[in-house]
């Protein structure tokens, strides 16, 4: 009888764990559904239509939004992705190609800054911009080896995942950029800056990785009719 009790306890814990995951998943789906519904309400309320009398203003707003999107998304710990999502929500599939190239440009900019700007200069620049968290991230990375800097991207992952991440680093980079909640480790801009700082990502391969990694949402909006 005695061995049965631990097994029963383990089974109960497993069921509890599975229930917890299901509950979290249900909450996440509910939050996403509510957010989508809210965005549609806002869009309907704005009655945003491109007309002859407002096209010039809409054009200026799109250009301004795009520049802000590229700049903010490239900065660590700055939530820039929301600008892109807001533009997709407001203008629909027609704006998807622009959002896509702005995202690629922003990620590439962050990588280039991390790769080619001296690390102390980057830290000072972020401090001048009063981005203390981003500067602290760079300062933490400064004394580390390239591999250890990559490990920062995979913060909190088990050792096995770290090993796989080092071996398939471009896949890891693509996954990290697309992972929801990656703002905790710096967001897309922070991840790309850290990838540049690590020195183990070649420019061409990184560019190709980014071009593929950020394509799912714009492509889904454009070709599959996904509505945000």
């Amino acid at each position, binding site marked *: 009888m005695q061995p049965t009790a631990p097994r029963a306890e383990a089974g109960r814990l497993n069921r509890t764990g599975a229930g917890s995951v299901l509950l979290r998943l249900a909450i996440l789906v509910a939050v996403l559904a509510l957010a989508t519904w809210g965005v549609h309400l806002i869009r309907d309320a704005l009655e945003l239509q491109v007309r002859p009398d407002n096209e*010039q203003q809409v054009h200026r707003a799109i250009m301004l939004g795009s520049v802000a999107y590229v700049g903010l998304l490239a900065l660590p710990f700055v939530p820039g992705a929301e600008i892109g999502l807001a533009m997709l929500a407001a203008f629909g599939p027609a704006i998807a190609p622009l959002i896509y190239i702005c995202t690629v440009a922003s990620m590439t900019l962050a990588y280039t800054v991390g790769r080619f700007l001296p690390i102390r200069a980057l830290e000072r620049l972020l401090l001048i911009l009063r981005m203390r968290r981003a500067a602290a991230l760079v300062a933490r990375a400064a004394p580390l080896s390239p591999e250890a800097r990559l490990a920062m991207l995979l913060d909190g992952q088990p050792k096995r995942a770290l090993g796989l991440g080092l071996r398939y680093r471009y896949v890891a980079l693509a996954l990290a950029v697309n992972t929801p909640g990656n703002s905790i480790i710096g967001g897309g801009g922070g991840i790309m800056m850290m990838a540049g700082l690590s020195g183990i990502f070649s420019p061409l391969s990184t560019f190709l990785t980014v071009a593929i990694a950020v394509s799912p949402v714009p492509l889904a909006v454009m070709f599959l009719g996904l509505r945000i």
Partner: protein
Amino acid sequence: MTQILQIAAIAVATLGTGAATMTVMNEDIPDFAVPEGDWKAGHELDGSSFEILGTDVASGAVLDNRIMFRDGTFQSADCQNYCDFGWSAYQTKVIDGVVHFTARTVCPDAPHTVVWYGTVIGDEVVLEGTWTTRRWYWTNQIAITATGVEDPGAADGASG
């Protein structure tokens, strides 16, 4: 020097990808297809002016406008207000006493092209057309239908 070259290569790759993406994904929308026929430089409507009430086909928005003809040229008051289109040549063909006209107007300061096609019976006009804006990142088109009546009071100004 190597670093500068690498940065330049990254910039070129980014711009090239952007250009390629736009070329492939930014689909053009053709202007309104005017019916074919024996179109000739128009003079039949010179001196006419029509008050028109139109609709943006997609959104249902109401468009209140005035179109004018003089010396073989055409102008829409709203287009003039929005983008200084000026006066553009119009063409006509007459079939069974009905004057068909078309005009293609281009904004000099922005990538707007407006194509008008209308028929005039007596003092009434029926119009169709498109306002197409071809920006480098998208093409936006507004399809318009409208009807209107001649406004004899404005004819002097239109013929001006």
